[in-house]
């Protein structure tokens, strides 16, 4: 990583040692994370205030402190707050999942989206929406499952299939990606097919879910993502140290004493868990997993996606995108994933066009 280009020579590097772990303290990723946090906080207050029933920043804070009339309390605490929290958690989880996948697979195009995990979740959710919808093709127990559970099962199932098919005396990033692409294609085919099976209203509802939507999300959606993030993100951070070695070839990494297969599998598992739980809650919000790590990496001028900064930027991106999605188009609400795509893609294009540095992941 020391060959990472001239920009890094500017940075003062402070060695850091905690118990058996040692690393280099880089101020820039922390700065990016801090900046992202400020944006996230301001965005959150704005998000709690904006809507059909607008409240100023002061009124929002009063409601949060327990004041305010019953109507304002209901709208802020029951509708907007759980929705906002779900969005922030989902954004963070997706961004970390994307950063991990890109680092392990060593391909900036790799993300849970492309690897078929979120697509698998999408196919299962759309199946429940369309087949359990007005056609009533599935009934009884199967229809009772509900979209979040189906999405979770679909996502994990896709991941398991990819992992099993890609395993041949170890996990090789390249084969993992190719199998993932195949599973992605199958799931995508299934989605297209399911979308034309039902009536157009069901197709529309499915498309809303597929784009990633936070409409009507409550605490029951926020809690699972929160729990998953609380367990998996620290685990990912612990493995980050080993992750650095994966930048090199497998042999070099082994030479550095990293148990390549174990670390790689562990990190992918964490990524899958985060992506699957996040997708189950809010649908596959486009682009967050793919691009947030890239943006964080460029802002932090790091050689690989900085995880904490990615998480914070992911959360801020989704919260702000949702604010726009539900308030910028009058009475019409768009799924948040459309906004993340339309906001984030030009930014990535801008970064690419600047060509500030060659992609390194």
């Amino acid at each position, binding site marked *: 990583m020391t060959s990472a280009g001239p920009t890094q020579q500017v940075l003062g590097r402070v060695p850091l040692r905690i118990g058996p772990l040692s690393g280099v303290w880089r101020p820039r990723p922390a700065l990016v994370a801090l900046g992202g946090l400020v944006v996230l906080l301001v965005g959150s207050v704005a998000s709690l205030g904006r809507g059909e029933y607008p409240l100023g920043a002061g009124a929002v804070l009063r409601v949060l402190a327990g004041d305010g009339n019953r109507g304002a309390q209901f709208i802020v605490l029951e509708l907007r707050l759980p929705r906002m929290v779900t969005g922030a958690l989902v954004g963070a989880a997706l961004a970390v999942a994307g950063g991990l996948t890109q680092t392990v697979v060593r391909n*900036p195009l790799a993300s849970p989206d492309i690897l078929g995990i979120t697509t698998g979740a999408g196919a299962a959710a759309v199946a429940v929406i369309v087949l359990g919808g007005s056609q009533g093709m599935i009934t009884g127990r199967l229809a009772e499952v509900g979209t979040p559970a189906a999405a979770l099962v679909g996502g994990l199932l896709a991941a398991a299939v990819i992992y099993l098919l890609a395993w041949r005396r170890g996990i090789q990033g390249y084969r993992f990606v*190719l*199998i993932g692409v195949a599973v992605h294609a199958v799931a995508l085919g299934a989605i*297209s097919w399911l979308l034309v099976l039902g009536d157009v209203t069901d*197709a529309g509802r499915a498309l809303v879910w597929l784009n990633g939507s936070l409409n009507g999300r409550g605490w029951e959606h926020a809690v699972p993502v929160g729990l998953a993030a609380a367990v998996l993100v620290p685990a990912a951070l612990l493995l980050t140290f080993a992750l650095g070695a994966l930048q090199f070839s497998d042999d070099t990494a082994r030479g550095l004493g990293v148990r390549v297969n174990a670390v790689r599998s562990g990190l992918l598992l964490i990524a899958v868990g985060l992506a699957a739980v996040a997708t189950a809650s809010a649908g596959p919000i*486009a682009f967050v997993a793919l691009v947030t790590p890239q943006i964080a990496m460029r802002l932090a001028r790091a050689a690989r996606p900085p995880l904490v900064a990615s998480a914070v930027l992911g959360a801020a991106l989704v919260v702000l995108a949702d604010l726009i999605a539900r308030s910028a188009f009058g009475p019409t609400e768009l799924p948040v994933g*459309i906004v993340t*795509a*339309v906001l984030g893609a030009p930014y990535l294009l801008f970064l690419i066009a600047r060509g500030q540095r060659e992609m390194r992941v």
Partner: protein
Amino acid sequence: MDEVSRPPPVPAGVQARSGPARTRRRRLLTVAGLLAGLGLCGLLSLAVGAKAIPPEGVWHALVAPTGSEDDVVVRSLRLPRTVLGVLAGLALGVAGALMQAHTRNPLAEPGLLGVNAGAAFAVVLATYGLGVHTLLGYVWFAFAGALLASVAVFALGSVAGGRGDPTPVTLALAGTAMTFLLLGLTNAVVLLDQQTLEAYRFWSLGALSGRDPEIIGQVVWFVVAGAVLALAGAAGLNALALGEDVARALGQQVWRTRVLGLAATTLLAGAAVAACGPIAFLGLVVPHLARALTGPDHRWLLPCSGLLGAGVLLVADVVGRVVAPPGELAAGIVLAFVGAPFFVMLVRRHRLAAL
């Protein structure tokens, strides 16, 4: 060409075993075999469908039609979709091989240039804003959308590439970002207007059925032009496969090869998506199969990918006609369901030729 040593690891089983003459004969045989196979697929496509028509009925319809119901089915439904299938399959096969060569990425497919997303957005805009409602009417919009998107991706990839060349990675990133952007916009429109969603959800399946025969006349010249351009750039691609610096040292004009190849890809993939809607998996898988047959020499790989693509698309379409009676399954869906497991098998069996 395949004697040129490639960076390790050398892919097993696809390298030449002996002298150039023998390799050449084997490749000619491969092409002949693929042509015969395509002919067979064409016959199959005329003979098999949702409605059972005996072979003599098909023959009757082709040589001496009297306007019976069977004659109408064969001549006005099956014949056009067969021709269209050959054109689109050929286009996607060649375009896929080109894309993988230019990006040096085995995951690359024509959609990576933003072709499909550009076409989709143009079709949706034409439906929503301009009141275009027929597949025939979509063709020009889809083609223009595909063209604009890929030119934008190419330009961005070039700007980012530093030396004025689009590097594989910047191209792939620009394509992905553009695809996300265009799909986001497309989804925004179809979610605002249910009638547009209705048109879009069927268009985006990728199918050969229900196409006006006139569409063939509209896209055939683009496919021909694209194929000619692709073959013209094939030798340059071989040099490029060794890396841009080596190619330059060999006297190749890298930029010229890139422009040629990407123009060909755009023409081919644009024509395919305009005619049939997005058919995603074909351009990804077929070049891998073709490479296993011919090796990495693009002068052989490109035509073989084309022939193989046409055959595979026809078979997928035929399967789709009989698998869900009395309805049909779109060829694009069949390809995903059948092609993907096949692809997985391939990935597990060989180490696919590294690009």
